[in-house]
């Protein structure tokens, strides 16, 4: 269960909650302790006060009685604000000043109980009060001294109770506030602590998306130096490896170019003199021509793709303003050797690399020709911040499972007939690469009338004019 929670809650949420709970617990216990201490000391103080007051009043009543006054008069002599709520028992009779004998608990109103000064918390009339009993000594100096009496007084706890209520409120508010502050602090702390991790996440994501230049900034944090260093070293090594691979492919294809030129031109010479060749040599010549053409495409494609691997991204020098419809028309016609239907509004302009974009269109059209039973039409649309060029074909479409794979290098189509369809498997990889050079991409859909629809898109500013 805890494991599930941990998995569901992020590290940040956990740190935040933990700090919130911790501060709430600390503040709560502090509040309880202070509440207990304060209320106890307040109650103690109140007890001492009321005891002293009752003893004073009882002394006064005793004095008045000793002078021979009637007990009722003695009670009436008691003053104060508020006047004491008291009761006097003397010679078997009760004299009341606000307190009735039946209010007293039975154990105290029993005339025979041994009287001594005592204080007890009671409930009288539904209120919590302090009841004080003070014995009044018989005044022995007089000849027929009366027996002793007992003085009772009741004191309210209103002041203490209201203080308790206010204190409770304040402490509760303080505890809740501290808890909330704990959560805020936890959030801030975890944000701060995780900020470098966010950098790592961003760097790793950029790296995963093919930006081999992505590096992690350790920014002098000794705790993160190790991680940053290993990440950067890995990225560095990987980048070197990628660059070396690309350079190797590029070098190999460069080295192949010169002999390839010799082969192509020798073949051309032979084909120009085809009539002079014996019949038996014509078929091998055709075979050689077919494979040499494919070899040429491969070498050119390899150079194309390795060049972009090493070239810096978004070299703006190579950008120019392009009318995209015109580019599509020219490229498609040059690729398939006939006019291709291009739908879309004229006058759509784009700042891009003409050579790369022409290559994209050419490769998509060539792909439609070799794998899609021929190109059906090209549709150019500008929507929002994207300019889309869709190439539709007459083929069976591309199965969803294949849609990622076919953009990989040397991913040949799985042709059930087993026939070689003529591609070398770099065309679509180059398409993707050139589009991502422009900050765009390519996706495959099903065309409305059946067949595949390859949609190449690039970021676009609709306000561009020639």
């Amino acid at each position, binding site marked *: 269960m805890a494991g599930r929670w941990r998995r569901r809650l992020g590290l940040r949420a956990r740190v935040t909650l933990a700090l919130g709970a911790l501060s709430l617990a600390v503040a709560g216990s502090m509040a309880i302790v202070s509440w207990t201490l304060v209320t106890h000391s307040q109650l103690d103080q109140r007890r001492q006060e009321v005891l002293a007051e009752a003893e004073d009043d009882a002394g006064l009543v005793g004095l008045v009685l000793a002078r021979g006054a009637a007990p009722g008069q003695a009670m009436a002599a008691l003053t104060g604000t508020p006047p004491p709520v008291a009761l006097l028992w003397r010679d078997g009779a009760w004299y009341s000043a606000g307190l009735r004998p039946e209010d007293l608990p039975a154990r105290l109103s029993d005339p025979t109980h041994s009287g001594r000064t005592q204080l007890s918390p009671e409930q009288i009339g539904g209120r919590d009060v302090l009841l004080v009993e003070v014995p009044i000594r018989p005044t022995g100096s007089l000849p027929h001294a009366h027996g002793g009496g007992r003085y009772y007084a009741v004191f309210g706890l209103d002041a203490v109770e209201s203080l308790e209520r206010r204190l409770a409120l304040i402490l509760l508010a303080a505890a809740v506030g501290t808890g909330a502050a704990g959560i805020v602090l936890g959030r801030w702390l975890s944000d701060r602590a995780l900020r470098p991790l966010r950098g790592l996440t961003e760097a790793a994501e950029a790296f995963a998306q093919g930006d081999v230049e992505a590096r992690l900034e350790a920014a002098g944090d000794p705790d993160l130096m190790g991680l940053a260093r290993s990440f950067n070293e890995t990225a560095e090594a990987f980048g070197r490896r990628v660059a070396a691979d690309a350079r190797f492919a590029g070098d190999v294809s460069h080295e192949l170019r010169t002999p390839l*030129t010799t082969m192509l031109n*020798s073949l*051309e*010479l032979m084909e120009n003199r085809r009539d002079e060749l014996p019949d038996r040599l014509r078929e091998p010549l055709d075979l050689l021509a077919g494979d040499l053409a494919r070899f040429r495409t491969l070498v050119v494609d390899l150079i194309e793709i390795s*060049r972009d691997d090493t070239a810096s991204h978004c070299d703006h020098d190579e950008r120019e303003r392009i009318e995209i419809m015109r580019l599509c028309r*020219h490229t498609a016609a*040059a690729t398939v050797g006939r006019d291709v239907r291009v739908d879309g509004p004229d006058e759509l302009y784009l700042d891009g690399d003409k050579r790369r974009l*022409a290559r994209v269109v050419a490769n998509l059209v060539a792909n439609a020709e070799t794998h899609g039973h021929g190109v059906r039409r090209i549709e150019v649309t500008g929507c929002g911040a994207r300019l889309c060029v869709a190439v539709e074909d007459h083929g069976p479409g591309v199965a969803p499972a294949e849609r990622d794979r076919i953009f990989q290098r040397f991913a040949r189509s799985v042709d059930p007939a087993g026939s070689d369809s003529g591609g070398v498997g770099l065309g679509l990889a180059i398409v993707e690469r050139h589009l991502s050079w422009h900050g765009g991409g390519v996706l495959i859909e099903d065309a409305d009338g059946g067949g595949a629809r390859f949609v190449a898109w690039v970021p676009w500013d609709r306000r561009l004019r020639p």
Partner: protein
Amino acid sequence: MRRVLRLALEDEGYEMLEAATGREGIAALRLAPDVVLLDLMLPDTDGFGVCRCIRRDSAVPVIIVTARTDSHDIVAGLEAGADDYVTKPLVAKELSARIRALLRRTRSVEDVVFEAFTVGELELDVEAATCRRAGVELSLTRTEFRLLAELARAEGRVCSRDHLLEKVWGYGYFGDSRLVDVHIRRLRKKVERDPATPEYVVTARGMGYRLVPG
């Protein structure tokens, strides 16, 4: 490769002179070829140096042959004075089309009816293929001159790179606009007083170039 290209181009109807090294190539200039085909990778010196050497005393059209398609080699070759470039692997038929385009346009200068332009202090005599600035003759290659004449013909309107590629180099839609850009740079070095702040050949940002009277 050189030998097979000679064979293939001879097959296309050209008369070929072969030079195995840069030194031999420069020596062969005495025979006044119509076009020079220059491989940038030479056994003795580098092709850029040979190109500059040719340019010192000849306006002969030069096509460089490069194995590299990256900007650096092509731009450096054009800066060194080449008129056009082809990349390996090249096929004699395609190369022959380029040579024909180059010869046609260089020859056509002589075929053009009398045309002359005066733009500010610049005077262009198309018939004589000469250009003077404030009366002083400038030494332009034939391609540079064609480019300037084409800009002058537009009478101050903007010429797109596509237009210039088609008119000056005979390329269709897929010409390399670097050809135009580098030639414009070379042209400015000769035509402008301060090539960094051009007065005549002005860039119309994102659109092309135009020629204005100073």
